[in-house]
């Protein structure tokens, strides 16, 4: 019944996906076109044939948005496994594997730098790290990005890519929703801009907290965005979901996104928005 019950293969599939994408050729999951990897990268991980937006890592995302010379910050936090959680595998082992696979301590990267001429703080989520799930480290790191924005009065940008709260941290992961929302409220009171960029997928507790609280909420085309996972809803209503349900365009039509912006136009859109919001 929880919003947490996402597609249950996410936790394992992230690493398989990265193995597949290490090859020279990649098949587009939307149109089956086989694409040379270098071409796909040159095209910002967007299929040149059909425009499908592939998932992107946090560091590649920051590279795309910020001018050269930015600084990665707050990378040193590591989970202490508050529940000593174990299911079929120990959470500690899952963490160690994700850390080895991604070279990150957790599913989040903060950066400070310039987007065009605007100084900004960016927090970008890493989906390939345990499904981008949010535990104490992700929560604290995003809250620190909000603190940095508050202290510097620079706009905050959060790029979401997450299956939701990290159930291996139990209630601690749930509390991160409240923590980040409080930090964002302080920004709001201070009149400092916060733009939420929602990418594929953004679900569960991440959607039900900071991802929906931007002064602007901007989606990438075709991204899955929702509260309950599609499988949970299908099991609840006992029928197939309509085509396009919980995709960016669906949320735009229902009034929950300010815009759906293709990756190639994202930076220009954000620059435009930051000019509008510039603290005067």
């Amino acid at each position, binding site marked *: 019944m929880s919003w947490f019950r996402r597609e249950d293969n996410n936790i394992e599939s992230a690493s398989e996906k990265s193995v597949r994408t290490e090859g020279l050729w990649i098949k587009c999951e939307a149109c089956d076109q086989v694409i040379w990897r270098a071409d796909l990268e040159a095209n910002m991980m967007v299929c040149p044939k059909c425009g499908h937006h592939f998932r992107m890592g946090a560091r590649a995302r920051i590279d795309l948005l910020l001018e050269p010379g930015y600084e990665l910050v707050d990378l040193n936090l590591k989970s202490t496994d508050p529940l000593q959680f174990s299911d079929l595998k120990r959470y500690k082992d899952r963490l160690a594997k994700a850390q080895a696979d991604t070279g990150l301590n957790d599913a989040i990267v903060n950066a400070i730098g310039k987007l065009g001429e605007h100084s900004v703080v960016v927090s970008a989520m890493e989906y390939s790290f345990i499904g981008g799930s949010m*535990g104490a480290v992700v929560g604290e790191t995003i809250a620190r990005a909000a603190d940095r924005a508050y202290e510097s009065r620079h706009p905050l940008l959060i790029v979401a890519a997450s299956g939701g709260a990290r159930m291996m941290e139990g209630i601690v992961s749930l509390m991160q929703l409240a923590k980040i929302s409080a930090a964002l409220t302080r920004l709001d009171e201070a009149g400092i801009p916060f733009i939420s960029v929602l990418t594929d997928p953004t679900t569960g507790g991440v959607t039900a907290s900071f991802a929906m609280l931007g002064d602007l909420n901007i989606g990438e085309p075709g991204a899955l965005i929702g509260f309950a996972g599609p499988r949970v809803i299908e099991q609840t209503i006992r029928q197939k979901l309509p085509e396009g349900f919980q995709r960016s365009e669906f949320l735009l039509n229902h009034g929950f996104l300010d815009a759906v912006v293709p990756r190639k136009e994202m930076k220009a859109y954000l620059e435009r928005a930051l000019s509008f919001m510039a603290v005067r």
Partner: protein
Amino acid sequence: MSFIEKIFTDLSEIHGDRAFGDDPAMYCAMARFDGEEVLVIGNVKGRTTKEKIFRKFGMPDPEGYRKALRAMKLAEKFNRPVFTFIDLMGANPGLGAEERGQAEAIARNLMEMSRLRVPVVAVVTGEGGSGGALALAVADRVLILEKGIYSVISPEACASIMWRDASKRIQAAVALKATAQDIKELGCVDDIVPEPGEGAHENPDEAARILAERLHLHLNELKQLSVEDMLAQRYQKLRSMGQFYTEE
């Protein structure tokens, strides 16, 4: 709901979110707490099968969370404390809930409750399930009944994801550390409210009496604070919630 009826008097229900509809799973009312004007909010599960279906087993839709927020803003305007009572598996997962922005409704409550300028005391009376519970539990004080649980995910759902077997719910419940005592040790609730005998159901009147006493205690403490101090303490509490990490 039985706690609300036993603890408060002069209940006058407030309906609707002024946007879409009135969610039968969410109850909001002006009430008196030992004569003092307060606002109470609680999800409603229903008692008979027919009522349970009507109340969606107590799982609110977006309009339920929006009604609750509207009621809280009303309390803020007239400077009345807010009490919330939570016993739900989660927010309602459904087509309509997604179309009408379940995630946005919950997120909005998290933000607005963190800055509400009146005292907020939340009680998990049975089950506090995920973001659907948290959307009523961003508060100056969060209480949980001794036999209550508060969790990011239901044990059944956790079992079916992590063990690929929903029948492993007991293992999942243990692994999730979701009992009142566990949650208190993790610093995620402020107070555990004792229950009589084997649980509140055994002696509902006595359970309500004990809870009412605790509510008084917490409200009185909060009323000693200026609004600014209360908000600063609430912020500090939320900002330092769940700090389980090392910095190397």
